[in-house]
C-alpha cells in the first residue's frame, strides 16, 4: 500500500522547512527584543503575510470546509466573520494599539489604566484563550494524520506539539515571522491548486447538481470504515455488505459492531451520524434553513457574526503581531494587507465543502466532516493526481497547525513569562527572570506540555466550533476592554475589571456547558450556550460602562496624555509608545515594552 508514504513525505518536508527557517531566524535573533518582537523591523507585506499565516489555523484550512459540508450556507458566516473581524480591528484598534506601545493586552491594560491587578487578570484571560485555541490545533493534527495515513490520533498531536515547542523556545518570534509568512503562501497554494483540479473533475462529470431535493446519496459503491462507537441513523432501509455477508439496515439508529468496513451500494441514501440531521440539497444550499439540525438559525447566525467580528481583536496571537509594525500607520497598512490575503484564501474552503457532499458523502455518516479537504482529491480524481494533491493538502494542513500553534505558544508563553511566573528577585530587577529569554523558554515548554496533555485525551472535537468558542470568550473580554479603553476617557480600573470578570465568567461557563454537553441540544438554552457571544458581549460592555460610571472618581488623572499617546500620529516630536527611554518616565505606568527595552539595553553586548 503506497497510501501513507506521500502524506508522510509531505509532513516531513513541512516540518523540516519550518525548523530550517526557524534555525535561520535564530541566527539573527540575538537580544530579548529580537526574540519577542522581531525588533519591529518587519515590513507591512511580510507582516501581513505573517499575520495571515498565523491566523489561518486548522479551523480555517480543514474545519470551515467541514462545516460547509455539514451545515450548508449558514456556515459561510464563519470565514466571513474571520475576515470581517480584521475590518473591525482596523476601524477601532489597529493604529491606536500600536501607538500605545503595548505588546499584549495585559500591557495595554497597564498603559491605559496603570493597574498591576488588572494586568494579571488580563494575563489569565490570555492564557485561557490561548489554551482554548491551542488544543483544537493539536487535535486537528491528529485527525489529519489519521485521515491520510491511518496513524493513531495521538501521533499528529505529539508531532506538532514537539516541533512547535522546540522551534518557539529556540527561535522566538523572529523566526516565527519568517515561518508564518512562508506558511501563508504554502497554505494558499496547497488549497488553491487542488481546488482547480476538483472543479475540473466536477465539470468533467457533467456538473452534478448540489441543490437536489433529496439528501446526499452514494454516487458509487462505497466502503465505509465505521468505528464501533459511531452511532448513525438510517432513514431508508438499505442492504449493505459487512465482512462479505449481506445485511439489511432497518430504519432507526444503528451502530456497526466490531468496527468492520461496511459496503454501501451505489445510489443508497447516506445515513447520517446521530448528531447531524440529514438535509436535502435544497435546504443545505439555503441560509437559515436549519440544515444539519441547527436550532434557531437566525439567532445562531447573528451570535456567530458578533463573536467573530468582535473576537478577532481579542485573540492574543493576533494583537502581538501589531507590535512588530514600526508605527500606527504601518499597522493600518498591515491590516489592509491581511484583509486582502485572507479574502483570497477564504474563497476556497466552500468549494471543498460543496464538492464533499457529492464525492465523499460517507463523512456525513462517520461524522468526520473535518476530513473533507483531505479526502476529496483521492475520491474525486483518478490516477496519480489524487494522492499527489492529497499530499499537497496534508502539507498545507500541517503548515496551518504549525503556524497557528507557534503564534499561540509565543504569545501565551510570553505572557506567562512576563506576568505570571514568579518574579525571581522581585519586581525591582525587571528583566532578570520575568521577561528574560530563559523565563520565556521555560514558559514555552510548560505551555506546550500542558496543551498536549489536554489535547491527547480530548474526545472528537469539531475544530471550528471550539475555535468559535475561543472567539466568543475573546469578544466578551478583550473587545470591550480595547474599544472602551481606546475611545472612552471614562473607563476605570474597577469598571474594566468587573466587565472582564463578568464577560469572561459568563462566556467560559457557556463554553464549559457546551463542550461537556451538559445541556442537551434542543431549544433555546442550548442555542444560547452554543453561541454565547450575542448576550455575553453586550453584558460585558454594559458592566464595564456601568462600573466605570459608578467609580467615576478613579479615572486615571493622566488619561488625557494616554489618549494623545494612542491617537496622535507619529512624527510630531511627542513621546510615543516606542519612544526613547527619556520619554518613558513621563507617563506614570511604565510599560512592559519600555521596561523590556531597557532590560535589553543593559544585557546587550
Amino acid at each position, binding site marked *: 500500500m503506497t497510501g501513507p508514504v506521500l502524506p508522510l513525505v509531505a509532513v516531513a518536508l513541512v516540518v523540516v522547512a519550518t525548523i530550517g527557517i526557524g534555525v535561520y531566524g535564530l541566527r539573527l535573533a540575538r537580544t530579548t527584543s529580537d526574540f519577542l518582537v522581531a525588533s519591529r523591523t518587519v515590513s507591512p507585506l511580510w507582516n501581513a503575510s505573517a499575520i495571515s499565516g498565523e491566523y489561518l489555523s486548522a479551523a480555517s484550512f480543514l474545519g470551515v470546509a467541514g462545516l460547509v459540508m455539514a451545515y450548508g450556507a449558514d456556515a459561510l458566516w464563519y470565514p466571513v466573520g474571520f475576515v470581517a473581524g480584521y475590518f473591525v480591528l482596523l*476601524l477601532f484598534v489597529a493604529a491606536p494599539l500600536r501607538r500605545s506601545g503595548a505588546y499584549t493586552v495585559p500591557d495595554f491594560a497597564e498603559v491605559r489604566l496603570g493597574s498591576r491587578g488588572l494586568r494579571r487578570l488580563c494575563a489569565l484571560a490570555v492564557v485561557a484563550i490561548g489554551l482554548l485555541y491551542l488544543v483544537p490545533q493539536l487535535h486537528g493534527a491528529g485527525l489529519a494524520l489519521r485521515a491520510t495515513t491511518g496513524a493513531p490520533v495521538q501521533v499528529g498531536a505529539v508531532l506538532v506539539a514537539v516541533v512547535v515547542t522546540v522551534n518557539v523556545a529556540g527561535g522566538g518570534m523572529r523566526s516565527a515571522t519568517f515561518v508564518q509568512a512562508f506558511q501563508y503562501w504554502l497554505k494558499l497554494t496547497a488549497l488553491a491548486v487542488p481546488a482547480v483540479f476538483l472543479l475540473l473533475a466536477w465539470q468533467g462529470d457533467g456538473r452534478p447538481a448540489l*441543490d437536489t431535493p433529496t439528501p446526499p446519496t452514494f454516487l458509487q459503491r462505497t466502503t465505509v470504515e465505521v468505528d464501533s462507537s459511531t452511532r448513525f441513523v438510517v432513514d431508508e432501509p438499505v442492504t449493505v455488505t459487512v465482512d462479505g455477508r449481506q445485511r439489511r439496515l432497518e430504519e432507526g439508529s444503528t451502530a456497526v459492531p466490531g468496527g468492520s468496513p461496511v459496503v454501501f451500494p451505489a445510489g443508497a441514501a447516506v445515513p447520517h451520524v446521530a448528531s447531524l440531521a440529514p438535509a436535502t440539497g435544497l435546504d443545505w444550499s439555503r441560509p437559515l434553513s436549519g440544515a444539519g439540525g441547527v436550532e434557531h438559525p437566525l439567532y445562531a447566525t447573528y451570535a456567530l457574526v458578533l463573536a467573530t467580528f468582535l473576537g478577532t481583536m481579542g485573540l492574543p496571537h493576533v494583537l502581538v503581531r501589531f507590535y512588530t509594525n514600526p508605527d500606527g500607520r504601518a499597522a493600518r497598512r498591515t491590516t489592509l494587507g491581511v484583509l486582502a490575503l485572507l479574502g483570497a484564501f477564504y474563497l476556497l474552503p466552500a468549494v471543498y465543502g460543496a464538492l464533499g457532499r457529492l464525492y465523499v458523502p460517507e463523512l456525513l455518516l462517520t461524522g468526520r466532516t473535518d476530513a473533507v479537504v483531505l479526502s476529496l482529491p483521492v475520491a474525486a480524481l483518478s490516477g496519480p493526481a489524487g494522492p499527489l494533491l492529497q499530499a499537497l493538502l496534508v502539507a498545507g494542513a500541517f503548515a496551518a497547525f504549525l503556524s497557528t500553534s507557534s503564534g499561540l505558544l509565543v504569545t501565551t508563553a510570553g505572557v506567562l513569562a512576563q506576568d505570571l511566573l514568579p518574579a525571581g528577585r522581585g519586581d525591582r530587577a525587571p528583566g532578570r527572570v520575568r521577561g528574560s529569554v530563559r523565563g520565556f523558554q521555560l514558559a514555552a515548554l510548560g505551555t506546550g506540555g500542558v496543551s498536549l496533555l489536554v489535547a491527547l485525551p480530548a474526545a472528537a472535537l469539531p475544530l471550528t466550533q471550539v475555535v468559535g468558542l475561543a472567539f466568543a470568550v475573546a469578544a466578551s473580554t478583550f473587545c470591550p476592554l480595547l474599544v472602551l479603553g481606546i475611545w472612552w476617557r471614562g473607563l476605570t480600573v474597577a469598571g474594566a475589571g468587573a466587565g472582564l470578570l463578568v464577560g469572561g465568567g459568563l462566556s467560559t461557563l457557556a463554553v464549559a456547558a457546551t463542550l461537556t454537553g451538559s445541556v442537551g441540544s434542543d431549544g433555546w438554552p442550548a442555542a444560547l450556550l452554543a453561541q454565547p457571544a450575542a448576550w455575553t458581549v453586550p453584558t460585558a460592555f454594559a458592566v464595564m460602562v456601568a462600573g466605570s460610571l459608578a467609580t467615576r472618581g478613579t479615572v486615571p488623572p493622566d488619561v488625557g496624555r494616554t489618549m494623545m499617546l494612542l491617537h496622535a500620529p507619529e512624527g510630531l*516630536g511627542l513621546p510615543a509608545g516606542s519612544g526613547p527611554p527619556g520619554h518613558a518616565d513621563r507617563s506614570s505606568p511604565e510599560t512592559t515594552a519600555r521596561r523590556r527595552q531597557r532590560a535589553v539595553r543593559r544585557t546587550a553586548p
Partner: protein
Amino acid sequence: MSRPEPPRRVAVTSPRTAAVRRPPGRSALRALDEQDVVGELLVRSLVRAQLTLALRLLTVLAVLLGGLPLLFATVPSTRDVQVLGLPLPWLALGVLVYPALLVGGLVHLRLAERHERDFVDLVERS
C-alpha cells in the same frame, strides 16, 4: 614619502525633510505635551473625528452585511435567486463580501490618515 593629508570625511545630509523645513509650531506642541486646555481640545477633536469615522463605517458594515440574514429571513425568495450561476447567498457570502471588506478598509485608511494630516497641520500652523 608624505602624501598630502586626505580630506576629512564629512557627513553630507539633506535638511530637506518636512520636519526640518517646517518645524512644528512651538506653542501647539507644548500645549499638547503639557495637556493644557488647548492641547486637550486638539486631541479630543482628533479622537472624535476618528471615532465618528469608525462608527460610520461600522454602521455601513452592519447594514450591508448584518442585513443579509434579515433579508433572507423576511424575503425567503432571495435565498433561491440565481446570479451568475450561483445562488445569491453563496455569491454574496462566499465571494463578494471579501472584495467589499477590502474596499471598506481602503476607505478607512484614506480617511483616517486625512484626519491625522489635518491634526498635524493644525498643530504645525499654530
